[in-house]
């Protein structure tokens, strides 16, 4: 059994950022993203300052730039269409390297690219300094609906179990000489997916039985109460606070 890709995002460490309570970090990252998104796209210098702020956080968290940049690649498929915008958007056009590009499209692409990258970078920093389990505790503390937290928590617990089941089914298929080689074999794969769904569903019922047997009555008991001091909150909120100042300057200048 593998350790599961879900845990690879985390980078073990003992920096001050690692030590912050998870809910303060979640709140800070969310507030930062909101501030970045509400910055006018024309204030290009503001985005540069945001990047500097994030770099400072990464430095404090001792997350190396190479690690951060590699994780940022996740963004590529999502911003691919931003690259198309200058070509397809309407309105005033400018010539760049012999191509006729839309000014509006260029601004749009820049807007998506800059804000997207900053948002992803903030999330990557959050994920690499906070364990998944702690993130769940943080979400619980921030009063996310308990059902959502439970679903996420079971996803983490059973992701590996189901992946392992999937692997065993594939080995069983291949051991009987099956190899997916094209559209004609999709039916078999679909049936495997169906079987996996039913197995997981049945496992869910058994897990529920085990939970009820131990006194589960609809809500998860609180085992770890996460708390944060005023100092920890102010430390965590320094990032969105500084970003807010930049944002306000962006609107007024």
């Amino acid at each position, binding site marked *: *059994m593998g*350790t599961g890709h879900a845990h690879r995002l985390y980078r073990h460490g003992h920096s001050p950022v690692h030590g912050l309570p998870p809910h303060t970090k979640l709140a800070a990252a969310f507030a930062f993203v909101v501030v970045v998104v509400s910055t006018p796209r024309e204030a290009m210098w503001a985005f540069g300052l945001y990047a500097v702020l994030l770099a400072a956080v990464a430095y404090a968290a001792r997350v190396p730039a190479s690690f951060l940049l590699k994780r940022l690649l996740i963004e590529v498929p999502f911003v691919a269409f931003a690259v198309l915008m200058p070509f397809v958007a309407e309105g005033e056009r400018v010539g760049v390297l012999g191509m006729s590009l839309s000014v509006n499209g260029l601004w749009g692409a820049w807007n998506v690219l800059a804000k997207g990258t900053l948002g992803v970078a903030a999330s990557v920093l959050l994920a690499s300094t906070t364990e998944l389990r702690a993130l769940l505790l943080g979400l619980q503390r921030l009063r996310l609906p308990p059902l959502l937290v439970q679903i996420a*928590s079971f996803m*983490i617990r059973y992701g590996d179990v189901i992946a392992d089941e999937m692997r065993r089914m594939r080995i069983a298929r291949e051991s009987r000489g099956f190899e997916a080689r094209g559209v004609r074999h999709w039916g078999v794969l679909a049936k495997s997916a169906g079987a996996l769904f039913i197995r997981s569903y049945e496992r869910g019922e*058994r897990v529920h039985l*085990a939970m009820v047997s*131990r*006194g589960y009555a609809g809500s998860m008991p609180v085992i770890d109460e996460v708390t944060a001091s005023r100092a920890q909150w102010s430390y965590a909120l320094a990032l969105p606070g500084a970003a807010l100042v930049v944002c306000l300057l962006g609107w007024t200048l």
Partner: protein
Amino acid sequence: MTDPATGPVTGPVTGPVGDPVSDVPASLDVSGLAFAYPDGHQALFGVDFSVARGERVALLGPNGAGKTTLVLHLNGILTGGTGTVAVAGLPVDRRNMAEVRRRVGIVFQDPDDQLFMPTVREDVAFGPAAAGVKGAELEARVDRALELVGMADFKDRPPHHLSFGQRRRVAVATVLAMEPEILVLDEPSSNLDPASRRELADILRALDVTVLMVTHDLPYALELCSRALILSDGVIAADGPTAHLLADDELMRAHRLELPFGFDPRSVPARG
């Protein structure tokens, strides 16, 4: 249990086995239990038995005998048939459900079903926390339960990073943390390698708790339980010293129970 053959098997059981304390209610008292599933399939046809406090009893029976159905009645997951179940004198009904579930600790067959929390510690804490235990008392319960199964060093590990035998032991700890009156084990030795199987036996033998063990593993039943019940076609077909039941070829054949090749229960030395 006056038969001399059971004497040595009972051996050095910890706990008050055989104590002539008659005012202690039986850990488990099942009487006239009958149950049919909504689809009409009747699984139990009037089951009667009782397990005294501190006893270790094996529940044997072929596939489809109704063992799982019976187990799910013990903590009130299944109800609605006729008959009664009482745990240490407390009847299993809607009003007592929370207390009944604390008193009856069921260890299910697949530890992946039983261990559903992100870490071992949280999983063991789940039962007591659901019952309202908090803080230092909760930590102490978790530590004690993990200590009993020899898994104290694995507290902060995620369950899926443990070996199967370790997961089974943690599953036992999750119920022990609830300080149950009776431990109900569903196929405790299934999928264990011989060493893990023996380790689990040592742990179970050392526990001071009533045990009902549902199993196909007849040598394991003989090793751990001085008394056995045979559930067959929804009724208790036999109840007596394990060594006697296993040695009764006719009885065994009649209920589709088979000993492993070469295993002779008469030749098993008493555990000392």
